[in-house]
Every structure is written in structure tokens, then in C-alpha cells.
């Protein structure tokens, strides 16, 4: 009940379809915020465009609903202008990995102090079910009527390679883990990334014999293996599975806005040499 203060309840009910997992992810984000004691008045939540990105409309804090794919770039401006504010990005898999892929790798590389939660439903929900860079190979979508030929990204490995300093993955079936990872991401100093698999029975499920949301959650349960389990499995056994858990965590890398603030302090001692 305490979490209700994090919601703009006057704007409920939300616009998500029945059975959609986005509400579970949003609920997990709110529970994580409560767990770590996020200051509601000093937090900005930024999103792009997509079903998931509408989450910001229901969050009772400073919220910014931007253009498709650009949430992290807007968030970068906010964090640099106001390093004292906590900046959280909530965005879809298409938003972050396709149109916004460049911003994702660069925010990770800079180690910007932003917490990014990826609502991965493996599909473009808002535009009614076209494939995304995270649609698993072989599955059917509106634009892959014969089964998807492309391989999907392992987004966690991608952002880790790009320089993210906290990286984890969970699903809407594994709610407790999701809350735990988002909570750790929120307290992490640097670019933190949590990918959450979420079900879209309407556009993903219906085309792939999982129109029932329970079937989709069941699929997540069966597909998921932990990092530890995966370490003991043969590559061929891992095919079609999804590894969940914490992949990477380090605080050895300086958070970007702090590095920049240090530069400002160093220069303020010297005065403006350019003053003529």
C-alpha cells in the first residue's frame, strides 16, 4: 500500500492490454524504489516511446516522456545539468536496442550515473507487434510472418562490453529477483542496467501459441536458467534458453558526472584564463 504514493492514481487505470507484463515491471520498480528509500522529489524518470514508456505517466515524480529511442540522451542532459538528482530510464527493447542502440552503448561507455530498466517484451507493442532486435529467432511477428530469421541481441552482454558497471536480467515470472536487481541498480554508482523479460500476450503470444499470459509466464519459467546453472551447461543445451541473474557489478570505474564535477573544481582554482 505504501507504494501508492509513487503512483498518479488519478490517471489509473493504465492503458496496457489485459495480461501485459509491463505493470508487473512497473510494480517491481516501485517496490525497489521503496526498498532503497528513493526520494520522490529528487528523482526524474525518463522514457522513450512505446507501451513501456507510458509507465512514466503513472509515476508520481518528475517524469519525462521523450521521443522514440532517445530517453538515455535526454537523461544524460538532465544528469549532467543536475548531478544531484537521481535519474532513471524506463524503456522498451525496441526503444533501447534498435533506434536508441547508439545512445545505449554510449551511456554505458561513459558510465553515466543513470539506472536503466529495459522492458523486454521481444516485440514492438505500441505499433502492434512487429519484430524487435530482441525477438528470439524463429518466432512469428507481424513483420516476420514466416518466423524471424535474424538473431537477437544479448543486450546484457552488449552493455557490459560497452562499459556498463551494473548489469542484470530477470523476468516478470521472477518478480522477487527483479525487485532485488532494480534495487541494487538504484543504489549503484554508475551506469546500471536491468533487463526484464515481460509478456505481451496480445501481439507476441497470440502469434506464437501463447495468447494466455499464464502460458507466457510459464515459458519464462521454463526458458530461464541462472548464471550459475548456465556456467555448467553445454552451449547446445543453452540454445533457446535465457540466462537470468547478475552478470556484472563493479564500482572501480568513475561515474561520469562526478569526473566532470572534479574537472570543474580543478579549473575553478585556476580562474578563467580566457578572461581578456
Amino acid at each position, binding site marked *: 500500500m505504501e507504494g501508492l504514493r509513487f503512483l498518479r492514481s488519478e490517471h489509473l487505470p493504465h492503458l496496457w492490454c489485459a495480461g501485459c507484463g509491463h505493470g508487473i515491471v512497473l510494480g517491481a520498480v516501485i517496490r525497489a524504489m521503496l526498498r532503497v528509500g528513493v526520494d520522490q522529489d529528487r528523482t*526524474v524518470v525518463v522514457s522513450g516511446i512505446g507501451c513501456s514508456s507510458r509507465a512514466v505517466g503513472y509515476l508520481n515524480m518528475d517524469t*519525462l516522456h521523450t*521521443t522514440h529511442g532517445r530517453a538515455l540522451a535526454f537523461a544524460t542532459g538532465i544528469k*549532467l*545539468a543536475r548531478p544531484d538528482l537521481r535519474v532513471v530510464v524506463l524503456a522498451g527493447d525496441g526503444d533501447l536496442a534498435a533506434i536508441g542502440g547508439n*545512445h545505449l552503448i554510449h551511456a554505458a561507455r561513459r558510465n553515466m550515473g543513470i539506472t536503466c530498466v529495459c522492458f523486454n517484451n521481444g516485440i514492438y507493442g505500441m505499433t502492434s507487434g512487429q519484430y524487435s532486435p530482441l525477438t528470439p529467432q524463429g518466432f512469428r511477428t507481424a513483420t516476420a510472418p514466416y518466423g524471424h530469421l535474424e538473431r537477437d541481441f544479448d543486450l546484457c552482454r552488449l552493455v557490459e562490453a560497452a562499459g556498463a558497471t551494473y548489469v542484470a536480467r530477470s523476468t516478470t515470472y521472477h518478480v522477487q529477483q527483479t525487485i532485488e536487481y532494480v534495487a541494487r541498480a538504484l543504489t549503484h554508482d554508475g551506469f546500471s542496467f536491468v533487463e526484464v523479460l515481460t509478456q505481451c500476450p496480445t501481439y507476441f503470444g497470440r502469434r506464437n501459441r501463447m495468447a494466455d499470459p499464464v502460458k507466457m509466464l510459464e515459458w519464462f519459467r521454463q526458458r530461464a536458467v541462472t548464471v550459475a546453472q548456465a556456467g555448467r551447461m553445454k552451449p547446445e543445451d543453452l540454445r533457446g534458453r535465457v540466462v537470468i541473474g547478475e552478470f556484472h557489478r563493479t564500482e572501480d570505474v568513475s561515474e561520469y558526472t562526478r569526473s566532470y564535477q572534479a574537472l570543474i573544481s580543478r579549473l*575553478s582554482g585556476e580562474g578563467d584564463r580566457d578572461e581578456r
Partner: protein
Amino acid sequence: MSQPRLMQGNEACVEGALEAGLRFFAGYPITPSTEIAEMLAERLPRVGGVFIQMEDEIASMAAVIGASLAGVRAMTATSGPGFSLKQENLGYAAITETPCVVVNVQRVGPSTGMPTSPAQGDVMQARWGTHGDHPVVVLSPSSVVETYVLTVKAFAIADELRVPVVLLSDEVTAHMRERVVLPDPGTLPRGERPRAGRAPSDVPPMVHFGEGKRVLVTGLYHDPSGFWTENPEEADRLIRRLCGKVESRREQLTMVDRWYLDDARVAVIAYGCVARSALRAVRMARERGHRVGMLRLACLWPFPRHEVTAVAGRVEAIVVPEMNLGQLAGEVERAACGRCRVVGYQRVDSELIRPEELLPVLEEV
């Protein structure tokens, strides 16, 4: 009084932005705008501001809007191809009423064109580059000192009206070095964002992030509370108010210089770098006894319609020299409304229009 200095247009833009209180710059390098980024990378952290080179122009525009919403004066600078990339987020700044300044040092286009050569081909892009109906203010300097003055004004207008303001410079004005005496610091009005408590107007008060107001900012059509809406009446009201807040201030935003217009039979209307050649051509024509005058536009959008209409009513012809195939000439024609002939003189070969080539045009019409 400030000391005379030798200064480049881009440098004057940097000085103007700092005078205006710039504290955030995000950009992506592209000639002929790069000096602005390079100088600000050095200057901004010295005044407690932030410079960042983003991964592209789209990201730069996004970061500028984010920083502005967080309460600081923010700017980006680019050139033709980069300006095209910024358009979607420029529209976002317009609908969310986020003050910001976008410098576009024009170069030849379309596409990569003839890289870094001068042109004035982005007049219409600056007005209509993004989709939908939206307000925009576009200022176009003709000299180094004016680049300084208009940059300060750009911030003032952006803040007062909560609109994105485009400073439409060009390669010649940006790279030219001139002896300038800048206005003394603090003498140009810097403007203010409308904040809670200010008299009600068509520009709503601005709330910054971190003030505990828990706002929602969205590029969707929204009602006065900020929440998205699909109500046609709200939609209509929003877009008409956004466009109206600039439209209704057309006269205040008009910035023109007039030369020899009182007895003129022919008028030249020019802007940017071409205005300098044009003025020279006008003076040459006067020396030869032709009654030629000139109107120079420093604010292109909103278009100074009343000024142009008035000139058109008094002369036989208006000549519009520009480095594109008639982007402003068409607008002049609209404002002239058949009161006089409108003759365009155009170059798109990357060469600046010279006074000597314009003179015969003025003599003929």
C-alpha cells in the same frame, strides 16, 4: 567600454552564449560550426558549466532539452546535415515549450553537398523542418558583432517565450574575422523564464525538475495539467496557443535595418552574409543615381510580414538575393501580395553573391 578585438563569427557566438548565461552545451562536430564546440569545451567548465560531445546530433539535441528542463540555459551548434537530424527533437522542444538555442551554421546542401562551403539553404528547414504545426523563432546575423548580439537575444527570447530559437548563421559570417567592439557585459537584456507567480499569459510558468512539483513532460498532445490527452478540443487549444504565442509577438520580434527606403523605387531584401554584398551593391547603385533602398532582416521567422508589405506598397520592385533557389523570395512574394514585382537573384554554386554582379540586376529592374 569593451576593447576592440579581432573576432570570428563563431567566437562571437560563444561569447554571446556565455554572456547570456549558457551552462550546458552538447554537440557533435560538423564544419563550419565546430569552433563553437571547441571553444565551449574549454570555457564552460571554467564557469561551472558542462560541455559534452554526444554520439550524434540527435543525442545532442535531446541532452540540451534534458538540461534545460533541469533548469539551466542550454545550447547546441551544428550545420546542415546535423540540423536535419535534430528536427524531431526540435519539434519536441516546441511542443514541450522547452527553451533552448540551436545554432545552425549553414553550409551547402542537400546531403553532404559541397562540404563547408557557404549557403543559405536552410531557411525553410529552420521553419518547417520538423513535422506538424509548431512555433519557431529564427534569427540570422550578418556580422560578427551581430552574431554576439543575436545569440544573447536568442536566449532571452527562448526563455521568455519558452520556445526553441534557431540562430541561423552561415559559413561566411561564422568564419569571417572582424574588428568588433562588443556591448558591455550586462547591457543586453537576458530575459527570464516565466516562473510560478508571474502574471498569467499565453506562456505558462515553467517548472524545473527537482523542485518537488512532480511534473509530467511529454511530446504527446497534453492538457494544461501536462497529462496526455486525445481530446480534440484540448489538442486544438494546445497547438493554437503554441503557434499563437509567437505569432502574436511578430512585431516585437521583428528586427530589421533600413537603408535609403524613403525615396526608393527598388528595394533589396537580404539577410545573413549576402546582406553585406547587397548593401554594397545598393550604395553603388545610389552613386550612379538609382533610387534603390534596402531592408535587412535579422529575424527571419516569424517573418516580418508587415515591414515587407509596407515596403512593397512603396516600391516598383523588390530584389531578393540569396544563396538558395528562392526560399525567402517566395515568402517576400506572399507578403508583397502583388503590390510590386518580386525578383529573386540566386546562387547555389557555393560562391558568395558579389556586389558587382548584383548591381546590373538592380539597374535592370
